[in-house]
C-alpha cells in the first residue's frame, strides 16, 4: 500500500467505509483491519483494563493524600497501629511485611507459570497457578485477620478511631478493601484458568497465552500493593 501514490491509496484503502454511511459506515471505519498494537486482542484488552484500574487506585491514593494533608488532627502512626505483639515485644508492621512477601512470592510463581505455559508444559503451568492462587488466598486471609484486629481490638471505624484523625479509617478500609477484592477476584480467575488449562480447553487455540494474560492481572495486583505498602503503611 505504501508504494502507491497518496491519492490512490486513500481511495482504495477502505472500500467498505467509502461505500456505506451511517451506523454501518461507523462500524466499517473502526473495523477495517486496522491494528495499532501487535498483540492479541485479549492481551491488549487486559492492558487497557489494567490502565483503567490504575486510575481507580490512583484516585483512591490521591484522595488519601488529600485528607491526610488537610486534617489538623495528627494521623495515627501506621508503624504502631499495625504492630504485632510477638515474643513479648511489639514488632512494627510485621503482618504487613509478611503479606508483602507472600504477594511477591505469588508474583514469582505466576511468572514461572507463564514461562511453563510458553514451553507448552500445561501440567506445571497449572500447578504453579494453583500455588499462586494459594498465596493469594493466604494474603486475603491475613488481610481478614488484620481487619478483624483493627475493628474489634483497636476500634477503628470508617468515621473515626481512638488514635487520631478520623479519615484514617475511611482511607484504610476503602483502599485495602478494594485491593483485597482485586486479590479475591484474581484468585478465582487463576483457579478458573488453571482448571480449564488442565481440562484441555485451550488445546485447539494452539497456544496458552491466556496464562500470560491472567498473569498480567495478577502482577498488577502485586504492583498496586507496592504503592499501598509504600504510601499508606510506610509513609
Amino acid at each position, binding site marked *: 500500500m505504501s508504494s502507491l501514490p497518496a491519492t490512490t491509496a486513500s481511495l482504495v484503502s477502505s472500500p467498505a467505509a467509502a461505500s456505506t454511511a451511517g451506523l454501518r459506515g461507523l462500524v466499517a471505519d473502526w473495523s477495517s483491519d486496522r491494528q*495499532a*498494537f*501487535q*498483540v*492479541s486482542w485479549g*492481551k*491488549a484488552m487486559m*492492558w487497557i483494563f*489494567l*490502565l483503567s484500574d*490504575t*486510575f481507580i487506585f*490512583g*484516585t483512591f491514593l*490521591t*484522595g488519601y*493524600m*488529600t*485528607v*491526610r*494533608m*488537610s*486534617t*489538623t488532627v495528627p494521623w495515627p502512626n501506621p*508503624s504502631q497501629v499495625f504492630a504485632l505483639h510477638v515474643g513479648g515485644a511489639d514488632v*512494627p*508492621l510485621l503482618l504487613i*511485611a509478611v503479606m*508483602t*512477601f507472600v504477594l*511477591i*512470592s505469588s*508474583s*514469582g510463581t*505466576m*511468572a*514461572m507459570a*507463564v*514461562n511453563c505455559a*510458553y*514451553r507448552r508444559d500445561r501440567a506445571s503451568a497449572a500447578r504453579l497457578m494453583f500455588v499462586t492462587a494459594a498465596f493469594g488466598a493466604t494474603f486475603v486471609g491475613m488481610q481478614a485477620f488484620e481487619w478483624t484486629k483493627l475493628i474489634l481490638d483497636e476500634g477503628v471505624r470508617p468515621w473515626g478511631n481512638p488514635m487520631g484523625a478520623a479519615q484514617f479509617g475511611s482511607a484504610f478500609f476503602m483502599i485495602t478493601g478494594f485491593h483485597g477484592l482485586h486479590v479475591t477476584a484474581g484468585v478465582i480467575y487463576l483457579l478458573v484458568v488453571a482448571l480449564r488449562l488442565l481440562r484441555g480447553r485451550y488445546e485447539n487455540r494452539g*497456544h496458552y*497465552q491466556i496464562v*500470560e494474560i491472567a*498473569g*498480567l492481572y495478577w*502482577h*498488577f495486583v*502485586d*504492583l498496586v500493593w*507496592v*504503592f499501598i*505498602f*509504600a*504510601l499508606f*503503611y*510506610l*509513609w
Partner: protein
Amino acid sequence: MQGTSPSPAGQQQHPIGLYLKVWALLFLLSVMSYAVDYFHLQGLLRWSLILLFMMLKAGLIVAVFMHLAWERLALICAIVLPPLALLVLVGLMASEAGHVHLTRLLYFR
C-alpha cells in the same frame, strides 16, 4: 537482555533465571523498605528511600514480570503515558489540601 526478545508471534519466552533474579531483587527491595520503617528513619531520607524503593519495585514488576520491556513502543506508550496525568491530579490536590489545612487552622480550632 540479549536472547530474550519475543518471537515474531508475540510470545514472551524468557529464561527462568531472569525471573528468579528479579524475584530475589524484589525480596531485597521489600526488606530494605521494611528496614526504613524498622530503624525509624525520619524526614527527607525516609520519604526519598520509600519512594525510591517503591519505584524500583514497580519498575521491575512492570518491565520484567509483565513483559512490558519487550513489547513494542506503541503499547508501552499507551500504557505508561496516560497514568502521568495522575501526577497533575496529585499536584492540584496537594495545593488544594494545603489550602484546606490552612483554613481549618484559621477557623476550626
